[in-house]
């Protein structure tokens, strides 16, 4: 469907000499009907990548193709202008034209450029259909600026869908909404995308959005793709500490890979040995970090279970009540771990506890400094 190969986009940087690569050799493919997310912190190049696909930026190198149509290729001297690409896009600010009403906003794409000769009845029929899809048909005559944030967002979506684009591009479309609305629109967007079967590229810095909506996530960092995979694999099998830390939160324990055993690998840390199921990018004898998510750590208060691998003793430090869960900082002799438990379990500060780290949730990753930033 969408194929992006070796995409490079550099900007002139005033503070440094020369040019900075905002997008540095990015390649990925998006399958038909897939919901593909570019996830990363601000400045990682995800929006630039999307704008290159849209045609709003000219890349410095690489190739972009949708189906069999090459939209951009530095090698073959091809560059299709944004308005000839037939892609739909929703912007972060929605970019609703304030001087037009709802109907005219959606009809605009059918009245300009190569579609300018669309017959009037066809225009109104398609606009009404698009508005019905986003459930705004009753507001067609209203001025666009009189809509609420959520309605504006759906209007922007209708405008992008009215041309029946081959590909839908979404640039952080939910980031301007308040938390409650964002949650409900997340479901709606996902439902729409699935019902319409439209291939979508979604850009966000919100890992919860990415995990809950996507078929595939590409985590980006410093202009490169750090890891590509399904939400499950990105969350449960991070390839490096950046992904582990950015997607969800994680605990990182430094240690050394000691030996490979029958059941996995044995890692030596200052607080004791840890057995892990998976080792990525590191080998026996090399330093590593063990990553384990806060909700996977079990807190045990019975003093009987001491000693043995994956079992540490420490005492409760700070306690944070977050409504649906309780978060504890647990102080070990040499490290500090964050654990999340059900809110019902209340432990007071200073209480000695032991922590069990289930080995199936532990992953040994290379040290951050040596971590490769690209796959």
């Amino acid at each position, binding site marked *: 469907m969408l194929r992006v190969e070796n995409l490079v986009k550099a*900007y002139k940087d005033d503070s440094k000499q020369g040019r900075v690569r905002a997008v540095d050799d990015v390649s990925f493919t998006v399958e038909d009907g897939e919901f593909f997310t570019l996830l990363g912190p601000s400045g990682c190049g995800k929006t630039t990548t999307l704008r290159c696909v849209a045609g709003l930026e000219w890349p410095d190198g690489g190739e972009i193709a949708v189906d069999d149509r090459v939209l951009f290729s530095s090698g073959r001297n091809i560059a299709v202008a944004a308005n000839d690409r037939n892609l739909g896009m929703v912007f972060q600010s929605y970019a609703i034209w304030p001087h037009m009403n709802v109907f005219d906003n959606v009809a605009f794409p059918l009245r300009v*450029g190569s579609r300018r000769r669309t017959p009037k009845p066809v225009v109104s029929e398609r606009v009404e259909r698009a508005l019905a899809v986003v459930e705004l048909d009753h507001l067609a005559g209203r001025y666009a600026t009189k809509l609420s944030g959520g309605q504006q967002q759906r209007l922007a979506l209708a405008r992008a869908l009215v041309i029946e684009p081959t590909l839908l591009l979404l640039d952080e479309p939910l980031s301007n909404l308040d938390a409650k609305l964002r949650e409900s629109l997340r479901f709606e967007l996902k439902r729409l995308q699935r019902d319409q079967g439209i291939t979508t590229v979604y850009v966000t810095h919100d890992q919860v959005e990415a995990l809950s909506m996507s078929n595939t996530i590409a985590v980006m960092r410093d202009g490169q793709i750090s890891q590509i995979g399904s939400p499950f694999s990105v969350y449960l099998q991070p390839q490096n500490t950046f992904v582990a830390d950015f997607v969800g939160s994680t605990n990182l324990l430094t240690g050394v890979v000691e030996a490979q055993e029958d059941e996995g690998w044995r890692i030596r840390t200052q607080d004791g040995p840890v057995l892990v199921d998976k080792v990525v990018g590191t080998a026996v004898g090399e330093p590593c970090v063990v990553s384990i998510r806060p909700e996977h750590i079990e807190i045990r208060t019975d003093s009987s279970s001491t000693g043995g691998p994956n079992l540490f003793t420490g005492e409760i430090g700070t306690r944070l009540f977050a409504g649906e869960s309780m978060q504890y900082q647990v102080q070990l002799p040499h490290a500090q771990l964050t654990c999340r438990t059900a809110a019902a379990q209340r432990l007071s500060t200073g209480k000695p506890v032991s922590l069990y780290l289930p080995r199936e949730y532990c992953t040994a990753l290379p040290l951050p400094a040596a971590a490769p930033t690209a796959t």
Partner: protein
Amino acid sequence: MTQLLDAPPAGSPSPSVQAKRTRRPTLLYLLGAVTVALLAYLVLSPLVYLTWRGLTTGEGLSLANIASAYSVSGTPEMLFNSFVFAIGSAAVSTISGTALAFFCVRSNAPFKPLLYAASIVPLIVPGILFTIAWVFLLSKDVGVINVALRGIGLDWLQVDAFSLPGMILIDGMHLSPLVFLLMFAAFRATDPALEESALMSGATVPQTIRRITLPLVRPALLGAILIMVVRGLESFETPAVLGIPSGNWVFTSRIYEALHTYPIRYDVASIYSLSLLLLTVLGLLLVQRANSRGERFQTISGKGFRPRPLDLGAWRWPVSVVFAVYFVVVVVLPVAILLWMSLLPFYQAPSASALKSVSFANYGRILETSSILTSVSNSAILAVVSATAVMLFMSVVAWLVLKSRLPGRRILETLASFPLAMPGLVLGVALIFIYLRSPLPIYGTLVILFIAYVTRYLPYGIRYASSSLSQVSTELEDSARMSGATWWDTFRRVVLPLMGPGIVAGWVYIVVVSVRELSSSILLYSQGTRVLSVTIWELWENGETGVLAAVGVVMVVVLMLLVGAAYRLGAKIGVREF
């Protein structure tokens, strides 16, 4: 002004790719080139011709013109008068305007609306009318105010309009609303929390004003003073009406005289024009420096804060009386005396006996005099055509400057802003030099006036256009492109409509200032191309004060309606909030 966040790469990495990419960049480059050429022609050709005429004689390059121009008798007095007049009128306008702005923003004195009303007076009462009105208020023997002062035994307060102090006072009063507007904005932009924290630190109110408030607005104040000095140097109406008869010459009146007495002294006109231009450019460069230094003082937070008014206590009423007196002096008196004059066949001081001869005969004579009617239609045509041309042209330029990625696009803005430093009279002199012998047969037609107006008002156009365009987010354009719109579709259907309110406001403003324009027109008009302000000037020279006043009253009413419409229109379009 917004900067493009996605700064463009200068020059694409591979030129071979560039060529084939799309048609848009090439078209854009073409548009950019045409715009630069047009702007450079309008703005730079007067400069080049003026310099060339000033620094050459029949034999070639020489400084002989400078020597002969500056050896004209009375030159030292002229220089002295020019500076005293400019600095004096700047002092009058700055002191009164700043004090009024301060009390208006920061105090609880009543009658504030009177000050807002007074602030648009320079727009609706043209300088020539304002000055003539003041002749009848302040001339030595018959001036209404002087007569009244003598009546109550305050002879020592009398000022003669036809003297340097009189000129300074009248010009200063005409310009003070401008200072009011500039300083009003500056006081508005200072965060009152800065003053409140000074008060909390134990400072008294006068200490706070002296040590916190004034230093905070110092850059704005400095800018306002410099702008006023430049305006004083450029001022033509007051020196011409009051200075020429009383022998108080300044640069502008000398230039005018050099071109209107026989033999015509082109050397004086060109050298004095160049000198004046040098001074105004220097002044505005200093303003720019003051402004850029002022940026570190900027406390505009984006969030609107309502300045907390200072409680004046017992001083509330004295201050409001000052407001009222100011309003009467700057607005009511000049308009009232014009109205009075327009109702009399010949001027008489206001009295019961004079009331008997009141009639509308002068208004009737406007309709009977074809030359006046021609000048009205000339002014109307010129104002509408110039305003339309400037705003359309400047919308494209603003787009190129703010949204395109053309290399060197900043030059466009500099070029378009330059005429701000060009006094109207100087532009007139330069255009005479260019078109008197040019193969283009436009000398003596409305076209030459059109060129003058367009050139003079480019800076206003670019300001209105770019400030309204900078509020149009780039995503609104991007989304149009994504919808399949071509560049032209996007510009016509998204950018222009969104700039609409700003363009309309700029258009009306340029119409208003074009109708009042005198200092370029006075050099460029000819028999059939008189404009309204020139007609007023000629009526004054012929002593037909009654008809003059009637024309003036009509003009003030029309301009008032136009300015009112501009405010209403802006508010109406602005309702949708973008």
